[in-house]
C-alpha cells in the first residue's frame, strides 16, 4: 500500500517534471522548425522568387535534407492556416 502511494507520488513528480520541460522547450522547438523551413526556402530560392544561392549549393545539399524538406512541405501546406497555431504557441487566453 505505502509502496503504491510512493509510486503514485513518484509518477506525479516525474509527470510534472516532463510537463515543465516540454513547456520550457515549446517555443524553441517551434523556432527551430521555422529556421529549418527558412533554410530550405533560401536553398529553394529560385522556386519562391527570392534571390537564390548558386544552384549547385542546393544540388550538393539536396540529398541530405529529407527532414527539412518534410517540414518545408508541411509549412507550405499550412502557411495560410496559422492563426490558431500562433494562438496556441503564444498561449493567449
Amino acid at each position, binding site marked *: 500500500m505505502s509502496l503504491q502511494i510512493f509510486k503514485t507520488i513518484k509518477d506525479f513528480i516525474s509527470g510534472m517534471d*516532463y510537463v515543465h520541460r516540454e*513547456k520550457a522547450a515549446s517555443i524553441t522547438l517551434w523556432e527551430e522548425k521555422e529556421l529549418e523551413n527558412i533554410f530550405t526556402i533560401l536553398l529553394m530560392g529560385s522556386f519562391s522568387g527570392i534571390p537564390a544561392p548558386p544552384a549547385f549549393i542546393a544540388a550538393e545539399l539536396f540529398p541530405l535534407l529529407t527532414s527539412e524538406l518534410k517540414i518545408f512541405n508541411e509549412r507550405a501546406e499550412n502557411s495560410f492556416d*496559422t*492563426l490558431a497555431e500562433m*494562438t496556441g504557441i503564444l498561449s493567449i487566453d
Partner: protein
Amino acid sequence: MTTIIVVLGIVVYIVLFKTYGKRLEQNVVKADNNNQTPSARMYDGVDYVPAKAPVLFGHHFASIAGAAPIIGPVLAMAWGWVPALLWVWFGNIFIGAVHDYLALMASVRYDGKSVQFVASDLITKRTGTLFYWLVFFLLILVIAAFGAVLGGMFVRTPEIPSAYLMKIIAALILGVLIYRVKMNFTLATIIGILMLALAIWGGSVLPIKLSKNAWYIIMFFYIIIASAIPVNVLLQPRDYLNSWLLYFGLFIGALAAIFSFHGFSAPAFTSFSPILSGGKPTPYFPAIVLIIACGSLSGFHSLVASGTTSKQLEKESDGLTIGYGAMLTEGFLSTLVIVSVAGFGLQLMVSKGMNITTANWATNYTGSMMKSLPKAAMFTASYAQMVAATWLNFIPTKIVQIIAGMWVASFAMTTLDTTNRLGRYTFAEIMLPMKEKHESAYNFFTNRWIASIVPAFIGIYLAWSGNFTILWPSFGTANQLIASIALLTGASWIAKRQGSKSRFALIPAYLLWITVTAAIIWFTAVVLPGTIKANPVTGITVLIIEIVMLIMSFVFIIDFIKHKDDALA
C-alpha cells in the same frame, strides 16, 4: 460550506466526465485509436513527437488557463454564488468543454488543420475570414480589460508590480541560464523558482507606488518592447515560471478550499437583474455569457486546441482527457474563485468600510467591489483569507496575497505582450484587401512598429479612459462570438463528416448563438448609450466594435443555415 462546494464540484465534474463526456466520445466523435493522429502520421522523432496524455494535458491546460477565469466569476458574484456556480458548472460541462473537445477532434481528423480552416471548408470561406476580425477585436479588448485589471491591482497592492518587476529580472536570468548557458535544466529550474520566491518576498519589502495612469503608460511601452524582443529572452522563461505559479496557486487553493470549513457569507441568490455592467441592471440571461467566459466557455480555446494541441495528440482516446478534461479543470479554478469570494468577500468589503449586506448585495456589490477590492484584488484578498483559515496559516497572509496577485498579474501581463505579437499578424491579414488599391497605406499599416502600436494603443487607451464593467463584457462578446462560431462549426462537422447525432453539439450551439447575439444586442442597446454619454470616445469605440461584431454574427448564421445541408465536396 467551502469544503462541501469544492468536493461537490469535484464529484460533479468526475461523474459528468465519466458519463456525458464518455458518451460524446463514443457516440458523437467516435474516437478510435485505429485512426492515425496527425502527430503519428508526421512522426519524425524531431518535431512531431506525439506527447503523452498527462504532458499534453499540462501543456494544454497551461495554455488555456489565464487571468480570465479568475476575474469573470468575481464579477458574476453580483447574481449571488448559486447562479455563478451554475453557469460555471453546467455551461462548462454541456457547452464549454464540448466546444473545446469538438474543436480538438475535428482538427485531429482534419490533419491538424485549425477550426478556422474547418469552418471555411464546411461553411463558407467568409467564415474563415471572420476569425481574423474577431480575433483582432478580441485582442484589443483583452488588452483593454487586462490592462484595467492590472492598473487597478498595481495601485491597490503596490507590492505586486514590484514583485512582478523582479520576476521579469528573474525570467531574464533564467532565460540566459536555460537558453544561452544551457545549464542543467533541473538546476536552472531550482534557481528560477528560488528567484521567483525572492521576487515575491522582495515585492513585499519594496513596494512601488505609482498612479494608475503612470502604470498605463508603463504598460504601453512594456507591450511594445516586450513583444519586439526574441522569445527566448523574456517570453519563454517567463511563461515557464508562470506555469509553476499556476500549478502552485491551484494546488494551494484546492487544499485551502477543502480544509477551510468556512461558511458562505455572500447571498446564494440576489436578483435576476442586479446592478453590474455599466451601472445598469444586468439580466442573468443573456448577460452571464459575457461576464463568465473562460471559466465555462471561451472561443480562444478552440484556437489553442486546434492550433497546437491537435498536432501533438498521441491517440484519439486521449482527446477526451485533454480537450474536455482540461476545460473542466479550468472550471474547477473558477469554482475555487467563487468559493473563496462567497466565503470571505463580504467581510473583506465591510472591513474596508463599504455599505454592503446580503440584503443590499444586488444593488451594492459591484460598486463596493470596484471601490474597495476591484476585480482581481477581490480574489487575491479572499484567497489569502481562505488560506489563512486553514492549517496553511503558517504562511503570512500578505505573502499569500502577493502570490495570488502575482498569479493573476503574471497571466494578465503575459497576455498583454503575447496578444500584441498576435495582433500584429491579424492586423496584417485584415489589411490584406487594401494591398491592391492602396499599396502605400498597406505598407504603412503593416509596418512592424505601426502594426504593433495600433492595437496596443487602442487597448491601453480604452483601459485608461474606460469603465471596466463595460470593457469586460465587450471582451466577452468577442470571445463568445468566436466560441459560438467554433461550436457551430463543430456541430456541422459532426453532421456532415461524422454522420452521427449532431444534436449534442447543435442544440448548445444554437442556444449559444442566440444567447450571445441577444447579449450583444442588450449590451449595445441598453448599456452602451449611458457610456457614450459619460465617456464618448470609449463608448463610441466599443459601440463600433460591437456593431461590426453584430453584423458578423448575422452574416455568419445566414451562411451557416444556407450551407447546413450542402453535400460535401
